């Protein structure tokens, strides 16, 4: 996978930054509702190894976030985004 890279929640990825999905066991953890949500996230493309980028953040509280996955953008609330783990890319483009 991504080696010893530090994994963070997708929600914590700053705007304009890219990361690689690496949810691993998180996808099968939790109660029935959480597993159902994880499944839907997988179905729409948040599978391990996929490149994602935070395009925009809502207001207030930086929620929801708009995430580009493949050629689609999905809006996710905080608890949804927290079901996805990502390895941030070092050259994630920081925007001023």
């Amino acid at each position, binding site marked *: 996978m991504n080696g010893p890279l530090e994994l963070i929640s997708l929600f914590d990825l700053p705007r304009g930054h890219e990361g690689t999905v690496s949810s691993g066991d998180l*996808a*099968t953890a939790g109660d029935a509702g959480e*597993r*159902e*949500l*994880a*499944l*839907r*996230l*997988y*179905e*729409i*493309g948040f*599978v*391990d190894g996929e490149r994602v980028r935070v*395009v*925009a*953040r*809502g*207001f*207030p*509280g930086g*929620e*929801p976030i*708009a995430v*580009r996955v*493949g*050629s*689609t*953008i*999905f*809006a*996710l*609330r905080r*608890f*949804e985004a927290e079901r996805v783990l990502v390895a941030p890319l070092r050259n994630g483009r920081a925007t001023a």
Partner: protein
Amino acid sequence: MSSASEAMSLVLLGNPNCGKTALFNLLTGSRQKVANYPGVTVDRKEGMLTTPAGRQFRILDLPGAYSLNAVSIDEEITRDVVLGTLAGEQRPDMIVCVSDATNLKLNLRLVLEVKRLGLPMMLALNMTDLASKRGITIDVAALQRELGMPVVNTVAVRRGGASELLAQLEASVPARLPQRAAELPPPAAWLAPDVADVTATQREVRRILAASVREPAIDTRFDERIDRVVLHPVWGLLILAATLFLMFQAVFSWASLPMEMITASVDAFGAFLSTHMPESLLRSLLVDGIVAGVGGVLVFLPQILILFLFILALEDSGYLPRAAFLLDRLMGTVGLSGRSFIPLLSSFACAIPGIMAARTISNWRDRLATIMIAPLMTCSARLPVYALLIGAFIPQTTVGVFNLQGLVLFALYLAGVVSAMGVAAVLKMTVSKGLQHPLLLELPSYRLPHGRNLLLGLLERAKIFLLRVGNIILALTVLLWFLSTFPGAPEGATGPAIQYSYAGMLGQALEVVFAPIGFNWQISIALVPGMAAREVAVGALGTVYALSATGDDVAGQLGPLLAAGWSLPTAFSLLAWFVFAPQCLATLAAVKRETNSWRYPLLMAGYLFALAYLASFITYRVALLLTGAGHA
């Protein structure tokens, strides 16, 4: 089943935003039947297609779905139709999967999931024009080989864009099908997948894509440059506010000319009948009842169409989900989600399509909260009531640069929105405590709205509205005319005849209830037919005040009459009443259908009635105090 002339049935299946409905429109033209699936208010769109060779197909446009593993009612319907388990729905002979060619990574997973069912199917790669513009090359032959099903290119927004699909349908479906769906083996048992299944399918999608599609590094600059502004916390909200402002301006200003024309024609027709028919009961029924009542409602068609033109165009362009994104957190503070925005916006036209649009909210609590507050968005049917009362009681002066009448109208709309937020907040505390609600909303690529799709959408709306005018409103007008005409006044009666009619008796009985909030018996009568359609209240007041005028004339002459007859507190009280206006049977029926229970429509009627009475009571009492006990 034996007759070869019986049309084959096709279903169109695909992700949301894949252009499926546009393809459906292209295939069927205006030969569409829009109805509901039994028991739920999910649109069931069916149409007929005749191929160049004369073959006939019955096409069903299924609701968009990301997966057969349904999380919303829309997706459940789609799954059940495909599996043939939906009561009253025949199993389709053929499944046409529609995929957005620019977004196969997302779309193909569903195709593979459906393929596992082992039913006859083919894949339509839609928006291939956009795909080639973006430099995406798809090796159709390879894709066909990998998927093991026919694959065709389509461009749903171009005339002739479905020719490959038509040819494939003619070629691969034999004229005399040896087996109809009813005779085919049932689909392979469908089991809800788990994460491992989905991961495996996604891996398969990537393998197939690697073998058949060459895609340059996706160029997302265009969309993202727009999104940087449109999704911006400050600029985005400003743009949204400006868009909504423009929309409401358009509803009121663009519609005025066609509305005047409709009024003039209705008046001319009424006058024509009056002069060419002898004085009789039939003439009274036609002129005072039908022409006045139906014409008075028909007048709102232009406003409704303009409102829907905006909503459809915003939807087609991909902007609406972005508005939902912007408002999600703000609406979340009162327990709603950004997804509630679209239904609530539609409710400004009419609560019924708004309540129906709420079905796209997958979370039941969110959906219920949205449904419950939809009637608080001021629907277009309340506009004539507002217009009449504001015209009669609010002086035409300016406050700064603003027109006072316009400000009052805006305040009434605002009162509705604010109370909706209040009710939602109360619901959040009581009904849906402590739950986390999913958003999971796709923000599709920006697109130019397409003319034919807008037109078909508007035609559909116009048809629904006109049917309503033709059925409910016509019946009601006739009934009201009857109730206020019979029985006639007794010999030597001093008051107007209507006072002795059934309607008069009813109004006087209701006056007991409504006197504390300042309503007289005439208003009380008008509220009764207003229950079936709010806009009838204006016509009803006209009838009740024994005016034999039609359409706008009623409003025109009624205004000064009301201004002279009612106190200011009474007028304000009635305005406050209509902010909540609990009396719309069609809305309550829609809620009953949507929630499949009597509990919620009754709850809604109860809380709206209580709020309306309370608001009117306070308004009336405060206004009485301020105006020195009024002059009534």
